[in-house]
């Protein structure tokens, strides 16, 4: 993900109601695991990494709107609202193929935070003994 010291507010971004992110996360069944890096509320409530259904449930209990960094090759977003069907299309894929999103809360002055998929954890959680190094 392109790093920047500037906040999402100053960069091309989308708006995502947290209920839409919860709905999207709820559809990431099949063992997808996630970590949240930097969000105070989620990091005090959940033990990360956690499965998508656990995170979806926590997101469902929250209210508000998220700003999502447009991390596409040519970022042009100007605050368009994304639905749960569209969120996956703008995910940044890291070198391992994990999806990474950078968010901030529209209503809070808190710093940006990351939502990161961890597919390695998905494998470790399935067959721990076989993934020992």
């Amino acid at each position, binding site marked *: 993900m392109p790093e920047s010291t500037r906040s999402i507010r100053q960069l091309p971004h989308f708006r995502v109601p947290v209920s839409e992110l919860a709905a999207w996360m709820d559809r990431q069944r099949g063992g997808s695991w996630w970590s949240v890096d930097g969000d105070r509320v989620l990091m005090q409530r959940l033990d990360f990494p956690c499965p998508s259904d656990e995170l979806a449930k926590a997101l469902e209990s929250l209210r508000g709107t998220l700003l999502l960094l447009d991390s596409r090759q040519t970022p042009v977003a100007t605050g368009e609202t994304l639905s749960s069907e569209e969120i996956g299309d703008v995910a940044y894929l*890291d070198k391992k193929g994990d999806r990474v999103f950078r968010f901030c809360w529209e209503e809070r002055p808190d710093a940006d935070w990351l939502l*990161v998929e961890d597919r390695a*954890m998905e494998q470790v959680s399935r067959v721990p003994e076989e993934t020992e190094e």
Partner: protein
Amino acid sequence: MPKPAINFDTYLKRIPSHSIDLPQESEVPCYHYRRSANDAWNLLVYIERNLAEVSVYRVSYDAHMHRLATMVLLGMVEAFERFLKQLAAECINHVARCTSDDRLDVFSAKGSVMAAHFSSGNLGRSLCEPLAWCDCDETNKRFRRILADPFTQGEFYVFPSHTQNPSGLRDRHELMSIVWQLRHTVAHNMGVVTPSDALKLRLLVKGIVESPRLLWPTKGDVWYVKLFLDETAELLNREVGARLAALLTTLHQTDPTLFQADVKAQELADLFKTPATVDGHLRNPL
């Protein structure tokens, strides 16, 4: 080229001033633990993910990731130790003024420590913070006394044996002892498993542990420790909260003027972030 002449007296003495505010969640023990353990885990995955984006020399990368895993493992265990201290301190603050037995004699705070904490007016912290809480038996002894019914030795163990209570916390003593021993090896010997460490670990894991060797944990190892500590912290938070509520109920029934039961129930619910009942008054966390 000669090394620069550093004024150590200036530069080392200013290090303690390089600090930031505690996170907001630090007032709630379970939130504070979770935040710190998650931060420690995120350090590992953040470095791993971002280094995957650039070209690295594989041998150095692998070695550094193992060293980082060692540090992160230590960070998680220390977050858990602090969680135990915070829990104990909060329990003391709730019971100290309501009991007159010798329960707090299990602590032996020095005058200098008491003096440092005097202005804060926080008895629990002054008794708990100077102590190490990385031994199951010592931790058992302290919690048992803090949470004992008046004028008894107590029956509540945070790391109970198969026959001790509460049953919900059983079967963790041995595994927790392994985690404490790993912590000792990393914190005091930079990960070197000494013959003494190996002997203790050998008895705990009931298998061969070689020494002298360097502990070289994987990311998976760190995760298993985190899963265990996360689960233990959750259970402990719930059981200690329930035991404290039961003790305060006993105390309130003996003397209803000690405190307002409904107010106390709300305080416990907010402290443990779980519903709390004190003498029939049920409150949920705000």
